[in-house]
């Protein structure tokens, strides 16, 4: 990619990170709301087309996806329940993105969404997401060697799995891709990255607790 475009992409990343910082500081807004419209709601109507477009056109730009993921995480927290209309499109977009560019940011998007919206009315959506992620991840992490080469993905995959166990174990155990899941679990045994190994063992501990 030419230098000018690289510079522009870096600028996009920086602006997304600044917006994420701005949302991160808005802690009090959701706690103040009772029945009022969130003051961020109108802004999100304008912001969503940007998010949608970036997740389509810049899906292979890892830095942009990472920054976007952080922006959505903080935006979602600040919007609280008024983010619900964007939840399904976001998850679908993240799954499509993951299929095109198998990086952990897309898995992490599902993870923080699950943390925020683990209630029963979204169970079907999160089950669909887990099934999709397992069936795709088994192709990417198809061997112990692949797991060693992609420690970040192993980290995010088992981070997500732990979150499912903690917040919605019924959905986790309803996963139709459970066989793929166990295969990845075994491939990742003995992974060298200490961070990924920690998350992997934390998941096993969590699993043993609920079994």
């Amino acid at each position, binding site marked *: 990619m*030419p230098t*000018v*475009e690289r510079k*522009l*992409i870096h*600028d*996009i*990343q*920086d*602006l*997304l*990170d*600044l*917006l994420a*910082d*701005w*949302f*991160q*500081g*808005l*802690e*009090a*807004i959701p706690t*103040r*709301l009772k029945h*009022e419209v969130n*003051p*961020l709601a*109108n*802004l999100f109507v*304008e*912001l969503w087309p*940007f998010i949608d*477009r*970036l997740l389509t*056109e*810049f899906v292979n730009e890892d830095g942009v996806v990472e920054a976007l993921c952080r922006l959505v995480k903080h935006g979602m927290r600040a919007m609280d329940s008024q983010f619900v209309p964007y939840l399904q499109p976001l998850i679908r977009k993240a799954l499509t993105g993951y299929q095109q560019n198998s990086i952990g940011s897309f898995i992490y998007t599902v993870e923080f969404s699950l943390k925020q919206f683990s209630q029963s009315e979204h169970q079907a959506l999160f089950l669909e997401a887990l099934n999709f992620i397992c069936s795709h991840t088994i192709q990417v992490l198809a061997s112990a060697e692949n797991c060693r080469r992609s420690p970040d993905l192993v980290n995010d995959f088992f981070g997500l799995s732990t979150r499912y166990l903690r917040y919605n174990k019924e959905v986790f155990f309803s996963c139709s891709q459970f066989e793929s899941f166990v295969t990845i679990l075994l491939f990742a045994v003995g992974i060298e990255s200490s961070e990924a190994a920690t998350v992997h063992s934390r998941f096993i501990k969590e699993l043993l607790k609920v079994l």
Partner: protein
Amino acid sequence: MAQILVPEFISTWSYADCYRDIVTGFSFLVDRVSQQDLQRCSTLVPLVAKPLLVPLNEAIMEVHERTCADNLEEG
């Protein structure tokens, strides 16, 4: 606020501490206002966020135009 948050100025910002501090400061301000008066907070939100969206949109458009031009040349 309008004197600092000028889109042309923001378009020169990077993700450096000085600019992060400005953004975090405005975030703190909006958050504090939300605790007193939600209506006033609603009027402040676009004043801070929109100037950040303008250069973002311009950068996206420029990448898009350049990519289209490159594709045409290659095609």
